[in-house]
């Protein structure tokens, strides 16, 4: 029996199913992560966090709750974490990347729903996720239709609060978003019983910016050749950034970056200098969805960037810290969030430019566009991305898949053929 069983039981998890999930997670992690050679020392912190993902971190959340802090879950990088933190609450990302719970999810959702949505609904129905069970409130958003409609069902099982995300980026859309953030601010004050002040908001902005800055630093170090860190490891770091304590996380990543800088100076890397460098672009990859990065990096290529919400889309833009008043901070937040280039927007031309400049800065030899099956926004936009890449002279491979392992062999062939093409 694990020492956390009592805690999990209190959270009303299905203990048997949950231990099955942890076993799969552990096996995956061993195969995909611990098998890598030449890993950085600083990854030990990440290994530790992941091994305690449902243990120590959940314990910390329970302690925080006991101390009177609220826990807020989110499914999208539009959920304004700064406001959550300014109200003294903790925000955790709830995106789910495992197939467990799929059967339960398919009882209430159509089969042709994207794996990410099925996974979080399934986790709730099958009582598998201690994060979800710890939440006092869960933020939903009107991004894609799949999520928007799924929240209507999800709401019957979890305390959902839906934010309206605009679909376009005109002045009136920004006004709508500002209204939504103000509404959320009121909601958070009500939930936490704490007033949000200009000071607390300023501190929260700084805290989240610091985390983004550390991740920006990490990403820019990947422009080096040979590449100093594997794409798998960076994906993991981005995934962990959504639920780890932000202060501790930022410090660990900065330490890791120091180590990487030394490595770059010494001209060392995780892959040979001539290994094709690939940029991943598209849908988010939540823990433990490491399938495609693993396939890519097992075929002799190395991933140098993630143009996705669990990646650069979440870290590229900072919030302006120059303000003093509540009004100025709220405006700075609105500006920053309206720059997110999610495929749910129309038009979404900024994204095309952002991918091209990432490919250039990171010296990518090719782009792999990743879409989850049944994700319309990204699948349709892939056409435009492909055209933009053609103009930029960067070859692109478009992959559509989900969390199941049945297509791994075919994926390998396609990815390997793409890598052969780039050599």
């Amino acid at each position: 029996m694990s020492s956390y069983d009592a805690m999990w039981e209190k959270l009303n998890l299905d203990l048997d199913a949950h231990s099955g999930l942890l076993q799969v997670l552990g096996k995956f992690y061993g195969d995909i992560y611990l098998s890598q050679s030449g890993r950085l020392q600083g990854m030990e912190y990440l290994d530790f966090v992941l091994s305690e993902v449902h243990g120590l971190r959940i314990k910390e959340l329970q302690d925080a709750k006991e101390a009177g802090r609220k826990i807020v879950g989110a499914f999208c990088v539009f959920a304004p974490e700064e406001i959550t933190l300014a109200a003294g609450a903790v925000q955790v990302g709830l995106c789910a990347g495992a197939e467990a719970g799929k059967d339960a999810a398919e009882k209430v959702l159509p089969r042709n729903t994207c794996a990410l949505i099925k996974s979080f609904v399934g986790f709730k129905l099958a009582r598998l996720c201690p994060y979800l069970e710890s939440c006092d409130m869960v933020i939903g958003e009107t991004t894609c239709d799949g999520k928007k409609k799924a929240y209507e069902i999800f709401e019957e099982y979890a305390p959902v609060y839906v934010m309206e995300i605009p679909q376009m980026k005109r002045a009136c859309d920004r006004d709508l978003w500002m209204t939504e953030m103000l509404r959320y601010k009121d909601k958070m004050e009500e939930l936490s019983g704490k007033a949000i002040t200009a000071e607390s908001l300023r501190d929260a902005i700084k805290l989240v910016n610091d985390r983004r800055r550390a991740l920006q630093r990490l990403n820019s170090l990947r422009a080096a050749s040979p590449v100093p860190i594997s794409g798998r490891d960076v994906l993991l770091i981005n995934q962990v950034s959504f639920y780890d304590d932000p202060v501790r996380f930022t410090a660990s990543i900065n330490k890791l970056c120091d180590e990487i800088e030394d490595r770059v100076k010494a001209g060392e890397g995780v892959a040979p200098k001539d290994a094709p460098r690939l940029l991943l672009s598209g849908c988010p990859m939540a823990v433990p969805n490491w399938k495609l990065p693993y396939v890519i990096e097992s075929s002799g290529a190395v991933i140098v960037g993630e143009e996705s919400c669990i990646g650069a889309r979440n870290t590229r833009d900072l919030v302006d810290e120059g303000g003093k008043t509540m009004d100025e901070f709220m405006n700075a937040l609105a500006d920053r969030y309206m720059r997110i280039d999610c495929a749910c927007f129309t038009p979404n031309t900024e994204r095309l430019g952002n991918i091209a400049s990432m490919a250039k800065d990171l010296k990518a030899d090719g782009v792999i566009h990743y879409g989850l099956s049944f994700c319309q926004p990204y699948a349709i936009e892939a056409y435009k991305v492909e055209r933009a890449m053609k103009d930029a002279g960067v070859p692109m491979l478009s992959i559509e898949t989900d969390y199941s392992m049945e297509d791994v062999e075919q994926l390998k062939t396609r990815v390997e053929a793409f890598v052969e093409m780039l050599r």
Partner: protein
Amino acid sequence: MQHENGGIAGIDIGSRSIELVVMGDEGPVHQVKAPTTFDPLAQCRKLMREVRVGRIVATGYGRKLFAETAAGEMDVKAITEIQAYALGARYLYPEARTVLDIGGQDTKVIALAEGGKVGKFEMNDRCAAGTGKFLEFMATALQVPLEAFGNFAMEADRRIQINSMCTVFAESEATSLMARGERPENIAMGLHLAIVQRTLAMLRRVGLETPLVFAGGVAHNACVRTILQEQFDEPLLIPENPDMVGALGAALHGMLLASRE
């Protein structure tokens, strides 16, 4: 060209059959084929027994498995079917711009860039619709031997449309047509037309340019050849041994590696 321990070969381990090609100075000197069976490695060994090979390049879905087991005995490398078919087709037809390979379990379309490099490619996704497997399944359903299925379909007296490309649904569609008294030859023709339709869609996605090489096991099928040809003014380039192209390409890759040493 010879490797110090014997010839240079290519082996294509597909879902249905295994092909082996050994190269000589003037081109292939030895080409053999065997069914894959449930023990592909034993089949490979059987094919290899007849030849002395010092360097081999494996392709096809069994490439990794083969490369791992043969690693101690000879110089072995693995490449994907995409690259192998591109190399093989280019060697046979230097003017080729597009390669179509319909194999046992998948269909691939390759656009060749300048110099014969792979420019772009498409593969069918995880289901077997539109591949050799589809034909095999349907031939069984109509109780016609697979080898005779193409000629059987050519006996059709009218062209009917089969709407479903899913193996399971197409079978039930065929069954209900049969129940309505449709001639089995016409149904067979409908099934072949369905495959060609799907293939054309894939070809268009890579920006089809001719000349087009049609390779892979299904290129033996007279009906697929005929109705695909109807879509083009230029003659299709169909190799004499269409299912050997992958193994040939793998062997050519071996030659290339040897020349670089």
